[in-house]
């Protein structure tokens, strides 16, 4: 007799579809996704933008990061209009340096997404680790970590990012600042966003800590690090996924804000925010396309990721099912 119950139950419950893909398509989450047209559109837009960004080096018509390929006389060409000096035509026009807007946006989204994703990953790693430690240990450690998080949450993330950026400017030698800029940006945005992850995870961990499976592991003498990693972490990841997705949208916007303020990536390697900063100088002079296209791309990117996050929150929330 090896497990009779399983053998008996098999005919009553319909068998789960075989394979992971089929399992996923059959899940509640996929069901709720299929039923929400807004989410489907958001997914398509987000995927299209992400694909465009990832594949930029292969599909972009020009390489805007290669300054030697630029011709200044191509500058300020309106969309789909022939340049009066060079005779070149660009689908979305060119900026003040003669850079093709379409290619710039593709490469710019790539930087924006890369910075956003890396910064969010950094914030999650830091926030989740600290949240787990704080929630599991309680006491002094919890107090210290959470008070730091509270202090940080009490003023805007962008200020913290600016502060970190300023410090980095002072610490990093002048000749490495430009090559390090992107990493400084990632760390600055990551450090300004970790607190909300820590807070969420800490709460969830405090709940999980009381549960029997944790006690069981403790009695068996499992090292606390392994308990956190193997047992608690998987059970607190749901909410992290939700705020992580929304956090990605926020990080993309934060990167754009920093670049707009001129403290982000160098102007020769523009992200979406840098492109917007360049473009807004020409608002009054009538060259609208330099601002409009990158701005629309940023809005689409942030909005679609945000909508996905919203949907994920609803789908994963048992109370709303």
């Amino acid at each position, binding site marked *: 007799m090896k497990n009779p119950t399983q053998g008996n139950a098999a005919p009553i419950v319909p068998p789960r579809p075989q394979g992971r893909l089929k399992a996923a398509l059959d899940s509640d989450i996929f069901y709720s996704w299929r039923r929400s047209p807004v989410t489907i559109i958001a997914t398509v837009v987000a995927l299209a933008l992400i694909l465009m960004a990832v594949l930029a080096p292969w599909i972009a018509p020009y390489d805007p990061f290669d300054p030697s390929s630029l011709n*200044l006389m191509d500058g300020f060409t309106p969309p789909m209009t022939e340049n009066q000096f060079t005779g070149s035509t660009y689908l979305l026009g060119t900026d003040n340096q003669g850079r093709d807007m379409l290619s710039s946006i593709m490469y710019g989204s790539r930087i924006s997404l890369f910075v956003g994703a890396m910064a969010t990953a950094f914030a999650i790693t830091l926030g989740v680790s600290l949240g787990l430690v704080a929630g599991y240990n309680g006491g002094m450690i919890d107090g210290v970590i959470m008070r730091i998080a509270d202090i940080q949450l009490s003023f805007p993330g962008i200020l913290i990012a600016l502060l970190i950026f300023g410090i980095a400017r002072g610490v990093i030698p002048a*000749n490495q600042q*430009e090559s390090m800029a992107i990493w400084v940006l990632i760390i600055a945005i990551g450090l300004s966003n970790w607190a909300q992850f820590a807070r969420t995870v800490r709460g969830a961990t405090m709940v999980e800590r009381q549960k029997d499976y944790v006690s069981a592991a403790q009695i068996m003498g499992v090292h606390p690090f392994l308990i956190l990693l193997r047992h608690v972490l998987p059970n607190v990841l749901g909410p992290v996924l939700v705020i992580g997705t929304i956090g990605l949208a926020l990080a993309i916007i934060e990167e754009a804000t920093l670049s707009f303020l001129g403290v982000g990536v160098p102007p*020769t390697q523009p992200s979406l925010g840098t492109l917007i900063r360049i473009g807004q*100088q020409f608002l009054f*002079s009538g060259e609208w396309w330099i601002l409009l296209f990158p701005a629309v791309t940023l809005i689409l990117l942030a909005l679609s990721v945000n909508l996905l996050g919203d949907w994920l929150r609803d789908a994963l929330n048992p109370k709303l099912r």
Partner: protein
Amino acid sequence: MKKVMTHLGLALLSTTMIAGATSAETIRWARGSDALTLDPHSQNQGVTHNFAHHIYETLVDRDVEGTLQPRLATEWSLKEDDPTVWVFKLREGVTFHDGAEFTAEDVVFSLDRARSEASNMRQLHVEVTEVRAVDDYTVEVQTTGPSPLYPDNLTNTFIMDKDWSEANDVVEVQDYAAGADNYAVRNTNGTGPYILQSREVDVRSVMTLNENHWAEDTPAVTEIIYLPIADNATRIAALLSGEVDLVQDVPVQDIDRLQGTGGVKIETGPENRVIYFGYRFGEEPLASSNVTDANPFNDPRVREAMELAVDRDAIAQVVMRGQAIPTGVANPPFVAGWTEELDAYPAVDLDRAQKLMAEAGYEDGFTVTLDTPNNRYVNDEAISQAVVAMLGRIGINVTLASRPVAQHSPLVTNNQTDFYLLGWGVPTFDSAYVFNDLVHTKEGSYGAYNGGLFSDPELDAKIQSLGTEIDMEARDATVAEIWETVKSERVLLPIHNQVLAYAMRDDITLPVHPENQPLLTGLTFAE
């Protein structure tokens, strides 16, 4: 108690002013950047001087044509029996804002301060050995040899009150590059037409009319609100929405649109300022380059290749929208020593440039970082970006580091840059001013802005001789010789001379000042 009385007096003055409000006119004046400091001898920089000229005064001044005019000095001449001494007769009855009387000891103190070690104005006074007061209203300046053009150097050397400076411990000049601070950085006591009322760095400064000023004509503007607005579009939007009355730094792309807008007008004119790129010289490898065994810029062939790769006409046409005059010499046409031959520049020749690069051993190019300000000169960052692209074509892979001028300027004065953009205005209207600061070896009073540490002892000797040469023909010949060498050696990479545009409410008029240092006392209102 005295202070209270002055404050009371000021308060009374201001109330009478409001009572007779018929002539009270406030001008809100927007610029791209703020004065770097209010210590008058700490930074030899246009925006800083422009601001200071409203509060402090100089011995002599220059009118729009460039001729010297009396200001705190009423007469000046070489001493009859000794051509190595300049005698300045001072204006009587002038008082500082705190009520102290202006006398010869203040001039002696200020000139000594301006030529002290930490002063950024030193190069203008290199040939001075002693400044002495003869009586209360006569000052003698002793120079190493006859120095016929010395008064031309005084148009930006401001006079401070000796007692006030001693009382507030500001006898030493603020060492700006080292990040030092003193009382005079935020507080002022000048003799000028306006009194500083409040100052928030980079935000807002307020000045009101000095009722006790010596000038006979009372300026039409009674209050100045100075607003640094770094962002071009915001600055123009502020003018269009009526938040400011005068914008001094108008982005070239907005000139057309502003000309067609009702209620706003534009004044344009050439500025006495050249925009150029500077190189790091010396054997030592560049800090920001992948070439680690040599300094590519030290090779004249590389500098020639770079000049041949830069398309000045395209920059003038696209980046500057025609608001620039391309040039082949780092000397504006206003300045004595400028010639058409010097001004000529080579046509773009990429083939030859590539050949030169190969000859120099850099057929695969090299990398370097270019430091550029982004709020100082017209489209400074865009010019640098365009040059990055142009140099990319001959294999020089340039990383662009863009900073506000307050952070950029110390990089140049502290020699912490390999390749940089700078603009140079020439307030003396004489070439020696360019040579002293940009070409002469960096030592003592010379070479303050020679951030690339160019050094040529032969040129140094010639430059030093200019200060005390009395034979004007011989002096002109030496100036021509120095320019010849500077141009053929490609010590600097000049791009163009800026054309200035001021935008303002259409009922006021402020003519463009060739040094871009307009005094708002010259602003007039339409009837």
